[in-house]
């Protein structure tokens, strides 16, 4: 083993000792820093909460004017997301947001190169619930960053602006606003397969009787994921007229469709149960299996 190699390793050793010492120091100082930052953040959140609760314009302007860096923005977003906390009327927030310069800064931040920075701006703008929120947030539905898109989708309904509905329909999987029902039905008829599946799923959560004919038509679609979602939606909407359509797909070739149809029938009460009992003599073995399973759960009193 040559001396040169020895020297090289000795140097490496010295370097790693120095690195280790630095790292140990960093671990300890980071812990101290974090503890300090956490207590600072808790104080800041209390401060924001109080300013929002009092609704005093001057105080609000001063507080909003201090929201500049990442941590301050995260804390403000955290406080704004608490629906139970008292807050001033939207027009006061809007006015003081502008006067403090926060709104302008956030609007500029919407064009930042960094995705999380854009996301934070969307998050705060959405939760400020400003009147023109839709105009500001709608373009963010097409943002290249998925987190920003999702924050925008979740934030749009907060503006409570009817203009938000078309934008939300574009993001059906995350919307769930009953006002969008006609648009969802339209999407179920005309959208891409993914959009139709999302529309069926959303209709199951928020749809009403008007959705039944289109969902029943979807039960005959060639794509099984759509048939499965349609069966599930018909069950959860709870329209008893859907029993014959669900009964007819108990022998569907896809397991998911059969299972969702049986669960749907079970959820539809007496007419659904009768359909399941009829299916016990179904010529198709798989339909009999699903019916037997669903009825067995009923017999032992396990909820639908």
């Amino acid at each position, binding site marked *: 083993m040559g001396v040169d190699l020895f020297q090289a390793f000795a140097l*490496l*050793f010295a370097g790693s000792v120095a690195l280790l010492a630095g790292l140990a120091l960093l671990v300890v100082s980071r812990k101290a820093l974090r503890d300090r930052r956490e207590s600072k953040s808790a104080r800041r959140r209390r401060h924001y909460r109080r300013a929002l609760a009092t609704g005093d314009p001057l105080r609000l302007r001063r507080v909003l004017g201090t929201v500049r860096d990442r941590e301050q923005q995260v804390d403000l977003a955290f406080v704004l997301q608490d629906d139970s906390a008292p807050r001033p009327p939207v027009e006061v927030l809007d006015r003081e947001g502008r006067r403090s310069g926060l709104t302008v800064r956030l609007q500029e931040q919407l064009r930042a190169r960094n995705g999380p920075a854009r996301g*934070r701006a969307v998050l705060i703008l959405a939760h400020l619930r400003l009147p023109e929120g839709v105009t500001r947030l709608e373009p963010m539905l097409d943002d290249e960053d998925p*987190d920003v898109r999702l924050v925008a989708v979740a934030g749009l309904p907060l503006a409570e602006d009817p203009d938000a509905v078309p934008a939300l329909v574009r993001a059906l999987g995350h919307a769930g606003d009953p006002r969008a029902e006609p648009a969802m039905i339209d999407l179920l008829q005309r959208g891409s397969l993914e959009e139709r599946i999302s529309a069926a799923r959303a209709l199951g*959560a928020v749809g009403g009787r008007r959705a039944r004919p289109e969902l029943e038509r979807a039960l005959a679609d060639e794509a099984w994921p759509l048939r499965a979602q349609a069966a599930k939606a018909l069950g959860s909407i709870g329209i008893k007229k859907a029993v014959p359509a669900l009964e007819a797909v108990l022998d569907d070739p896809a397991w998911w469709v059969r299972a969702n149809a049986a669960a749907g029938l079970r959820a539809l009460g007496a007419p659904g149960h009768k359909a399941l009992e009829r299916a016990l003599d179904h010529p198709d073995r798989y339909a009999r*299996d699903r019916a*037997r399973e669903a009825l*067995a759960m009923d017999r*032992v009193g396990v909820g639908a």
Partner: protein
Amino acid sequence: MDVLQTAFDTTFVGYFMALNLAYTALLLLGSRQVSEWVRRRPLRDFRGVSDSPLSLPVTILAPAFNEEPVIVPSIRSLLASHYRELQVMVINDGSTDGTLAALKEAFELVEVERVPRANLPSAPVRAVYASPLDDRLLVIDKDNGGKADSLNCGIRYAAYPLFCAIDSDTMLDAAALARLVWSFQAEPETVATGGIVRIINGSLLEDGKIRSVRTPEKTLVNVQIVEYLRAFLAGRAGWSRVNMLLIISGAFGLFRRETVVEAGGYDTTTVGEDAELVVRLHRHCRDQKRRYKITFVADPICWTEAPAERGALRRQRDRWQRGLLETLWRHRKMFANPRYGGIGLIAMPFFLFFEALGPVVEISGLAYCVIGLLLGWVNPPFAAVLFGLAFTYGLVLSFGALLIEGRAFARYPGWRDLRRLMVAAVVENFGYRQWLAIVRTKALWTVLRPDTGWGEMTRVGFSEPVPAVAPGISSATDG
């Protein structure tokens, strides 16, 4: 003799340098991955994912074999998971103790009829039970067939498109599921994702929930905490960053059911069924030229009890090492095969040379140095510098993992915890690491006689507030 000595020197020194370079790269990648997650965390509405009827429903599969002391609180803790559309399925793998009876009594189970749907083989099912108290619970009683067999059985009966495989003696953080499901919803090409497994020994529990996270007094457990942090926050987070993650812990992973069924389910003939499945999923998706992602998420936490006794720890590590070796052997076709991209060219060679054969090289290197010193082949100052370098660099990696943990999560909040972990990081280099290398080297020799059994484990349970040190058990997790 000189030629032989030079060959040995070059091999050991070259190996040592390559190993440390690789670990440094992983540490940096892991740190970046975790920082990115932390920056994006405030944007992610995990509560929305938990509460929404539109979120993907999840079946939790909890295989259980002789888990009588822990099964009821564990299942209660799972049912308390904050997730709207959830099915919890316990698969009783032919337990010989009162596991099934405890479940029957606690949840008033009644036998129901269920027809399996997927075509995966598994040991015969004796009965399926549901609970009138909670319709999300399903218990399958089957003949003993091992953990992988139980998971396959669970997949056959699972109702939902995602399944979460966990150990029945583990506890999930309330928001853990939503955080994993997020990956599937934000990136639909995701086929599997794993969360972090942390050690619960020393923490205070109440009503199946963690009241306060603390480190235990026992150094053997603290050493394992440091190991887990290194393995997850540096290792897996780093591999996930480059989509080359080869292991998702058997204790906590979420999978797309359809893809797992397509790939053939869990392999019942290996002791490392979790790693084997992940490698097979990579292979399956790449063979099909499908876009896919297998990821690790550093935040959702699954808590598990770590072995506090050497015997249990030895058995656990022996099992992990054999599992790794079997997996690498079964998928040797992927090794250095450009068809499998980074998995074949980087990840598998790394796992073979540094993880599977690492302990052998370490033991050989130690033996060579000791014998060399005695016979005068090795220059003592050189050996001292090399040992010092190995020691300090090992510590650099451990402290790096502690730094990532402290910056991103700080789950161990007290100064005493930090002190204990830093001490454990130092102590592990004196005896523990070498002992572990011997255990893992021995596993290499036994790999020709794989034992797929679960082994006998002594459970102590964690339903009540536990003392600082929970008596040891061996769990079927991997770190």
